């Protein structure tokens, strides 16, 4: 069966890729919208504006 190797790699590549895309999107969204992270993000966003270049 000369084609098995390629077909298997292909199946894995395509199948896993799709699963991975979905999992990653969900993971990212959960991280970004996790109730606790809002405050941290606000703090980070404002952090660059204060104390800029002052000793």
């Amino acid at each position, binding site marked *: 069966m000369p084609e098995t190797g390629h077909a298997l790699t292909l199946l894995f590549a395509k199948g896993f890729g799709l699963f991975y895309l979905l999992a990653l999107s969900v993971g990212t*969204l959960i991280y*970004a919208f996790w109730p606790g992270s809002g405050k941290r*993000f*606000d703090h980070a966003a*404002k*952090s*660059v504006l*204060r*104390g800029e270049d002052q*000793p």
Partner: protein
Amino acid sequence: MVAKLTRAERQFALILLGLMALCGLVMAAGANDDLFALHGGLILAVAVGLSFLVISGLDAPEPPPERLAEYYDAPSRVAIVLTMGWALFGLAVGDWVAWMLAYPHLTVDAAWASFGRIRPMHTTGVIFGFGGNALIATSFHVVQRTCRTRLAGQFSPWFVLLGYNLFCLLAVSGYPLGITQSKEYAEPEWYVDLWLCVVWVTYLVLYLRTLAQRREPHIYVANWYYLAFIVVVAMLHIVNNIAMPVAWNHSRAYSAFAGVQDAMTQWWYGHNAVAFFLTAGFLGMMYYYLPVRAQRPIFSYRMSIISFWGITFMYMWAGSHHLHYTALPHWVQTLGMTFSLVLLVPSWGSAANALLTLNGAWHRVRDDATLRFMMVAAIFYGLTTFEGSFMAIRAVNSLSHYTDWTIGHVHAGALGWVAFISFGALYSLTPALWGRQRMHSAWAVEAHFWLALAGTLIYVFSMWNSGVIQGLMWRTYDSGGTLAYSFIDTVVAMHPYYIARAVGGALFLAGAGIGAWNVWMTIRSPDTVSQPAGGDRPLTILAGE
């Protein structure tokens, strides 16, 4: 710069330079071909030159220990000067080759001066020389300010900066001599690639160690982008450049990959060099300097994080859109096309985030050309990513590929996005790092802005026109069902656009010239502001404000 190092660090620098000189000497003396010997000589010369610099400062007094409580900006200062130098060089060479295409007889009749050898000098000069130095200068600055800590190394920042510039020098000096592996945007030969690996790993370690000693609980998003830039460029560079040298003392090597595998690896590299060198790194720049300059926090921090993972994830799949209708398997082409389209979502997320941050600060955009540079950059980023996704559609690509449309697209990104955000960041950074209140001449920043904008628009529009026209001419049939135009007919049709393009490039170059003058005058002009005693310090008290 030497005086800021301790005695032990100076001695260490001398030892390294000694090793480097030895390496150059062995390369020059043991070379199997003349080109390798020439590069050995160049490495030797650079090592000797830098050694003189170190020796001249060897007996300077030890630097005060208090310096460790301050930010370490000397490497960024040198990087800014190098950035402007490479900008002028790369843009000038680019405009030169542009005129060469319009008037091919107006050139030196010598081997080194042909288009094929000079064109990579332009691409390497602007991408790696200008872009790379701008990224190093700003990443060193941003990581310290956002982490409120000093760089985690006294010597390694210099190693990274100067080592990187040695890489650029070896690359750019190699092409006119004929040292190239002709892999697009990865032209340097194997030994230059190996050197970049060493430099880049040092850069990554330095960056990670600085992040590790930060005094902020959260890593600010700009650092995410910079980190992605550093680590992914390392991956891309190493994989794409795996090669077998003809001999240890020979400049030529053969790529480990061939044919269709090499094509896919090359465009996986080429496309993601765009993604992580020319996009992620400069997005890091944007996410710091734009909010700071506008004095407004980023519109949506959440969106910046979602875009980050979107870009990191999806760009990697899109490389195959460079190979539509080729011998690459069809399913890989389709995969690349699909992801290129989805990629528009995080890309526009970033562009919109930048523009919405400015919403409410439009008066600043009107009055401050520096901020306007960044705004135009965000607009061009949005336009270029849209165009990129559009061109990745197979049917569109059948027309645009191999034509100047690609060149126009690349320059919309490189001039409109990369150069604009860089100049914006440099105009913010230069006065700050030299303790000046503002750039030497506000008028010169305005002039630079308008020249750069006019130059970019002329360039991009002329290339869009010539690309579409040539693409259409190639596929036009006459009533008899045969091809209507010979290839040379289409070359003749390009002539007016090539002139327009060269004019646009000249305007952009003139703007950069004014910018370089302005940066230089800002550095040289006497202190108008009283310097805060002791310099710029990352004190923890600040965090509690």
